């Protein structure tokens, strides 16, 4: 078991190196570099001056030297300066990580709270009216782009009904650390979380429904019934245990996936998170920030996949011994 975890963790190293290489290459291929940004607003700089500074910052070194230097700094949390915000990228990101993590976490929780009961109902009572309703919801959710739905939510619940604030992540007038501050944060989270969750249930419902329908026909379910196990227990002890297992295992993957995937939601709700920063930085061509964000969300996915594999190995006896 420990050996498996260790091996799985070590496997992350080549994955991360590959990821960073690809991102580094892409960053290089983008127009401009760290220096261009710094001189953007200064048309007086002569080519000679720029060249001198390029030399000083090592931008004329071979690519692998640059890559090594960049990676070394990144590992220490130094992603350079954002020229638009005129502060270190790390500081800029740190202020937003908490918001995005909260958003992702609550969205994931909501997704499971909605998808698991619906998936179970649809799978257990296939072709019932409840199943048909759930399948219809699933198709509609599948066909609706997240940003369209988020805009609709914003329009209805914030603009027309006025139940929730429609911008930001907290009311800036409230002092941080107070109860009112927490409430305000929660209020600001409701619409972004619900917009992401209601659309985000699609995969889980679909998966769960299909898997339950599949498990129902398995021989070991006949064995369970032949033992005299009541139908409710046939589901809770046998079918659901098998069907929910991959979902539990996907938890790590799902949450870290959301960290990189809340771009639209954050932008539409002007929620001060990483996704919003990402879009802003792209619009402003602030590539040091973009590169750092891509690296972070890529790393999150790699770590999430590893977590999922480890959880799966913990809950599924078939994987344990390998």
């Amino acid at each position, binding site marked *: 078991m420990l050996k498996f975890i260790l091996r799985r963790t070590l496997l992350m190293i080549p994955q991360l190196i590959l990821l960073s290489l690809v991102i580094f290459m892409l960053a290089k291929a983008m127009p401009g570099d760290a220096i261009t940004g710094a001189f953007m607003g200064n048309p007086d700089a002569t080519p000679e001056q720029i060249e001198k500074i390029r030399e000083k910052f090592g931008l004329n070194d071979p690519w692998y030297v640059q890559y090594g230097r960049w990676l070394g700094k990144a590992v220490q949390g130094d992603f350079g300066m954002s020229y638009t915000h005129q502060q270190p990228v790390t500081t800029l990101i740190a202020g937003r990580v908490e918001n995005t993590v909260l958003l992702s976490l609550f969205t994931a929780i909501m997704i499971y709270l909605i998808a698991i009961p619906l998936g179970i109902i649809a799978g257990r009572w296939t072709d019932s009216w409840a199943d048909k309703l759930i399948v219809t919801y699933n198709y509609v959710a599948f066909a609706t782009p997240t940003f369209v739905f988020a805009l609709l939510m914003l329009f209805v619940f914030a603009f027309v009904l006025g139940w929730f604030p429609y911008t930001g992540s907290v009311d800036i007038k409230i002092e941080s650390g107070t109860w009112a501050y927490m409430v305000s944060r929660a209020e600001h989270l409701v619409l972004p979380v619900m917009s992401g969750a209601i659309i985000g249930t699609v995969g889980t419902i679909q998966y769960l429904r299909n898997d339950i329908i599949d498990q129902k026909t398995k021989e070991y379910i006949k064995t369970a019934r032949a033992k*005299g196990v009541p139908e409710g227990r046939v589901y809770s002890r046998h079918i659901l245990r098998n069907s929910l297992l991959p979902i539990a295992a996907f938890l790590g993957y799902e949450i870290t996936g959301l960290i990189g995937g809340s771009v639209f939601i954050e932008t539409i709700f002007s929620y001060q998170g990483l996704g919003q920063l990402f879009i802003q930085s792209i619009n402003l061509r602030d590539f040091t920030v973009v590169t750092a964000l891509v690296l972070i969300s890529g790393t999150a996915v790699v770590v999430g996949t590893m977590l999922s594999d480890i959880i799966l190995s913990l809950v*599924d006896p078939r994987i344990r*011994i390998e």
Partner: protein
Amino acid sequence: MKNPVLEIKDLRTSFNIKGDYYAAVDGVSITVHENEVVAIVGESGCGKSALALSVMGLHEQKNTKLDGQVNFGGQNLLTLTRSRLDKVRGKDIGMIFQDPMTALNPLATIGRQIEEPMDYHMKLSASEKKKRTLELLRRVGIKNEQRVYEQYPHELSGGMRQRVVIAIALACDPVLLLADEPTTALDVTIQAQIMDLMKELQNQMKTGIILITHDLGVVAEMADRVVVMYAGEVVEIADVKELFENPLHPYTRSLLNSIPSNMESKEKLHVIDGIVPSLQNLDRNGCRFAPRIAWIPQEDHEETPEMHEAAPNHFVRCSCYKTFYFPEDRVGEREYVATNS
């Protein structure tokens, strides 16, 4: 005669296929007595599993229609509610399934799976359950029972798993055991071991057993009575000795001809070609077997074949057995069309 344990009367199991119901078990009546082994033989697709699953109430309710009676313990199982049926299944009737690779829950330990029926049918403490389970494991020939108790199905071989499946069926001391081809999915050497175990268990217990198998060697060794099925119907029933010595129905005779040892002792014997038609394609008028013995003239077949008692306790569907012959028997005597010419 001993007490009957199970009385299947005119059982008809029909499946919904594209809107219409087709009978896979078509008016079957079989009685199993205490301590009696009744073997059911017949080609793949003739309705043996459908019959066993009907007795256990394991067919999907939505697309299955069950008629007739399955009398067991003074009640007709077909009319029981699910909760009443759950008091019988796993307690008084145990079932052994064909494929041990899929018959066990991949996520539960062997110990839990054997203890599960005890949870519902016996009032035992956790330690008593464990003790009983370890005993059962030993009884089915598992020697390192302490270890196997903790293991998961994927850690065991097919033969070991089938022993576990048998232990589950025996967990609450059933009075009736249904075994649906318990060795078909196993390697040949393992098959013999599992059959030996079944025989040994049968000698120790008073359980009535329905043993579904294609292995006529096993039938000869274990069965008291044999039921031959064809296309959803019973075509012949007799005590095992009588059936092997004096098979009457053409289908039974063809089955016996297909045993290799007979092949050697006699010369070339006729084995009837063809397969059981699918449910939709089966002609249910007149003799179901007639299309496969085309050399017998139409007028020899009974209109709608009934069960005839040809000898005491020896029943055969239709009287054609009196005039039936294989084409080889009468070359030149009478015109015929052999199906395998």
